[in-house]
C-alpha cells in the first residue's frame, strides 16, 4: 500500500521539484538583470531573433484561425439570425484567447525550442564553462536577454496576430458570407473594449516569460551530448505548451472576472 503510494507520488514530487528549480532559476536570472553591464545589444539581438523566427508562422496561424472562426460562428449564429455578431465574436476570441495562446504556442515551437537547442549545445560543448572561465556570467549573458525578449516580443506578436486574425474574419465574413460590413464593424467596436485587448497582452507577456524561461532552463541543464540537446528541445516544447495552457486558465479566471 505504502509502496503503491510512493510509486504514484514520485512523478508529482518530481514535478514540484522541477518547478521549484525553474523558479530558482528565474530568481537568479532576475538578480542578474539588475547588475551591470546591461547588455542591451544582446537583448535587442534576441528580440529580433524571436520576432523574425516567429512572425511568419504567427501570421499564418492568425489569419486562418480568424477565417475559420468567422465561418464556424456564422453557421452557428445564422440559426437564430445572429450573423451580425460574427465580427464581435471573432474579435473577442482573438483578443482574449486565441491571439495570445496560439502566439505563445507558435513562438514556443519556433523560438523556445531554438533557445533550448542553442543553450544546450553551448552546455555540452563547454561554451558555458568557457563563459564562466572568462568571468562572464552565462545567466546574464545568455538567459537574461532571452527572458526579456520573450516578455517584450510576445505582446507585440500578439497584437499583430489579433489584427491579422480579425482581418481574416472580416474577409471571410464580408466577402464570402456577405455579412454587411457596417454591422460587422459596428458590433465589433460595440462589444470589444480596450480591457479585453490589454488583458490579452498581459497574458501573452506571461506566456513569453514561460516559454523563454523553460527553453533557457532546459538548455542550461542539458547533459549528454547531441542526444541530450534533442531531449532538452523536445521537453521544452511539451512543457512550455502544457504550462501555457494551464496558466491560461488561471490567468483568465483571475483577470476576466
Amino acid at each position, binding site marked *: 500500500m505504502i509502496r503503491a503510494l510512493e510509486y504514484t507520488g514520485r512523478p508529482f514530487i518530481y514535478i514540484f521539484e522541477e518547478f521549484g528549480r525553474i523558479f530558482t532559476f528565474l530568481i537568479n536570472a532576475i538578480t542578474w538583470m539588475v547588475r551591470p553591464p546591461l547588455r542591451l545589444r544582446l537583448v535587442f539581438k534576441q528580440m529580433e531573433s524571436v520576432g523574425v523566427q516567429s512572425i511568419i508562422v504567427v501570421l499564418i496561424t492568425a489569419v486562418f484561425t480568424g477565417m475559420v472562426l468567422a465561418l464556424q460562428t456564422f453557421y452557428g449564429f445564422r440559426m437564430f439570425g445572429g450573423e451580425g455578431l460574427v465580427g464581435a465574436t471573432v474579435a473577442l476570441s482573438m483578443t482574449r484567447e486565441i491571439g495570445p495562446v496560439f502566439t505563445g504556442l507558435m513562438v514556443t515551437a519556433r523560438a523556445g525550442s531554438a533557445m533550448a537547442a542553442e543553450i544546450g549545445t553551448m552546455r555540452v560543448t*563547454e*561554451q558555458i564553462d*568557457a563563459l564562466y*572561465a572568462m*568571468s562572464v556570467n552565462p545567466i546574464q549573458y545568455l538567459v537574461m536577454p532571452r527572458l526579456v525578449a520573450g516578455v517584450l516580443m510576445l505582446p507585440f506578436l500578439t497584437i499583430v496576430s489579433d489584427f491579422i486574425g480579425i482581418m481574416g474574419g472580416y474577409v471571410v465574413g464580408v466577402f464570402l458570407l456577405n455579412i454587411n460590413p457596417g454591422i460587422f464593424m459596428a458590433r465589433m467596436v460595440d462589444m470589444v473594449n480596450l480591457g479585453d485587448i490589454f488583458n490579452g497582452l498581459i497574458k501573452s507577456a506571461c506566456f513569453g516569460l514561460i516559454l523563454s524561461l523553460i527553453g533557457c532552463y532546459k538548455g542550461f541543464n542539458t547533459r549528454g551530448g547531441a542526444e541530450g540537446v534533442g531531449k532538452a528541445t523536445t521537453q521544452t516544447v511539451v512543457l512550455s505548451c502544457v504550462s501555457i495552457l494551464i496558466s491560461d486558465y488561471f490567468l483568465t479566471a483571475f483577470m476576466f472576472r
Partner: protein
Amino acid sequence: MIRLSNICKSFNDQVVLDQLNLTVEPEKITVIIGQSGCGKSVLLKHMIALIRPDSGQVIVDGEDITSLDEKGLNQTRKKFGMLFQDAALFDSMTVGDNVAFPLREHTRLSEKDIEEVVFEKLKLVGLTESFHKMPSELSGGMRKRVGLARAIALDPKIILFDEPTTGLDPIMKDAIDGLIMKTQELTQATCVVISHDIDSAFKIANKLAMLSDGRIVESGTPEEFQASKNPVVVNFIKGHAETNNQN
C-alpha cells in the same frame, strides 16, 4: 600559486580524484601527465572552480576558491586564461570575435586596439587568415589554436592548457610548444599544461606531475622524472618510448 589539498571528487559512484595533493609553483610551467580518462581535465577544472570538489581545498594566491561566492569567483577567474580540451569556441561568433571576447568584456580598449591585439595573438598561432571565419569552418587543430589565442588574449597571470598540442602535426606541435614557453617567458605567467606527449612534456616543463588512480603519484623536475624508480612513472615513460620505436 595554486595549491590543491586533499581533493576528492566522484561522479555518481566513480571516484575520479582521491585525496589529491598538488602544488603548482608560480611563474613556472607545470605539465600534468597521465593516462586518458584518469581525470586530468577534471583536475584542471578544479583550479578555476568550474568543478567543485566533494572535499578538500583549492588555494589560488592564498585564497580558498572553493568557498568563494559568484562575485569573488568572478574576480579570481580574471587572473586566469584557459584553453579547453575541445577549444570551446563560441560557434555564433567569428574567430576574431572569439579572441576579442575577453578583451571586450574586461578591458576598455577601443575597437581598433582590440583588433590589433586579436591580430597579434592570431599571428602567434599562425591563423591570421582565418580572422573572419566561423569556428565551424575550421579544422580541430585550427580551433584549438584559436582557443589558445583566446586564452592568452588578456595576458593572464595563470594559464591553463588542456592538451594544447593533441591533434596537431609535428611542426605545429613544436610551434605551439615554443609559443607556450615564449608566452611564459614574456608574461611570467604560471602555466599548467596537460599533455599526452612525453617528449614535449619534458621539453617545456619546469615541473612535471603524474596523475594516476586519482592521486599525484610523482612530481618533480624533468630530471627527477627521468630518474624515477616509481613503476607507474617508468611504465608510462617506457610505454611511450616503446610505441614510438614501433612506429
